[in-house]
């Protein structure tokens, strides 16, 4: 078999990171980068809990995520339910970069169900519209 000198095209960020950011105006943003599965779901849930506990709307930014499995989707739906119960908005941003993320959102129907917006700005704008309507 040919030895390939480079695998740059698939050189994905393996370790999934979770970051909480404050977008102001009582919106908490949870940023997921890299790959996320059962191994990182505790950290994802922690990040989501932090954002919902802040008492405002929640945006989950998946633009830099390269993989999510069904346990992560479960955590997102749970966070959305928690936000809805306390009367707050919930939105997901995904710009369509990583094929595995795009595919799982599409085949599960969650792209429409969550809903998923094409950028963090669009998700924030949608929440703004929700909160004022």
């Amino acid at each position, binding site marked *: 078999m040919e030895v*390939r000198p480079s695998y740059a095209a698939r050189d994905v960020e393996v370790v999934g990171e979770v970051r909480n950011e404050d977008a102001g105006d009582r919106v908490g943003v949870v940023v997921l980068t890299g790959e996320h599965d059962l191994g990182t779901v505790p950290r994802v849930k922690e990040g989501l809990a932090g954002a919902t506990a802040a008492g405002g709307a929640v945006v989950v930014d998946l633009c830099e995520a390269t993989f999510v499995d*069904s346990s992560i*989707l479960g955590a997102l739906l749970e966070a959305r339910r928690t936000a809805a119960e306390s009367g707050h908005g919930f939105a997901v941003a995904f710009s369509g970069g990583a094929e595995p993320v795009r595919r799982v959102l599409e085949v599960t129907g969650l792209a429409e169900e969550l809903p998923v917006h094409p950028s963090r700005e669009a998700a924030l704008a949608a929440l703004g519209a929700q909160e004022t309507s």
Partner: protein
Amino acid sequence: MTAEATELRLGLAARAENLALVRQALAGFADAVALGDGTLADLKQIATEACMNSVVHAYPADGEAGRIDVTAIASNGVVELRVRDWGLGFRPRPAEPEGSLRLGLPLIATVADSFEIASPADGGTLLVARVRVADAEGNGGGKPRPSPPREAELAITAGTSARPVIARVLAIAATRAGFSLERMSDGVLLGDAIAAGDASDFAESSVGLSIEECGPNLCVRVGPFIEGGAKRMLDRMELPGLGVSITKLANRVEVESDAAGEHLAIEFSP
């Protein structure tokens, strides 16, 4: 993709942190056999969900981690993925862990072209999924889907078993199309006449029937017949005891012949 089979085997402790390792091994495998991004995405999803099932359900949470074997075999345009554990086996689970979406298997079913779960004799669970390969440009992958029938189609072994099936299906189709009771009875008679046909006139060992609503009418297509078989059936379609030909009950009866073989097309109005 290489012509000969390329096989990857992984043995893992059943722990969540090993799921990323499986995906990276599959990414390398995808590079080695030149799989497209879509195929790799599907393989990663299937392997992750299948291994997660083993991690969460196969082995008791308080025990030592069990073993998971993952095998990927690429050959002839298909990648077969096998995930095997030696745990508690596949069982109905009335209570799912909190937050579980029960999405794992449906997800696998959605992205795989085929998959099956087996309970091997020596215990545990074996999941086998196959994905047709898209090349690096994304051509050729995805599930092939048969074209839908225009309404419904059935095939039943020719002979006595055909009669009750065809009669009932035609009756329900006629009811749905708003046919009167009398016309429904004609439909049942038609079914009987078709079923009473000579099995040797059909090109296959079964009687094929397709039904569709064409405007207010019901169009029934019977076949395929061997050459001349449709005409012979038509000639024999003198309804027993009534002395009435099927051609009198139907608005249109035609023998159609094309690449799919010879068929009898019959159109009824309510």
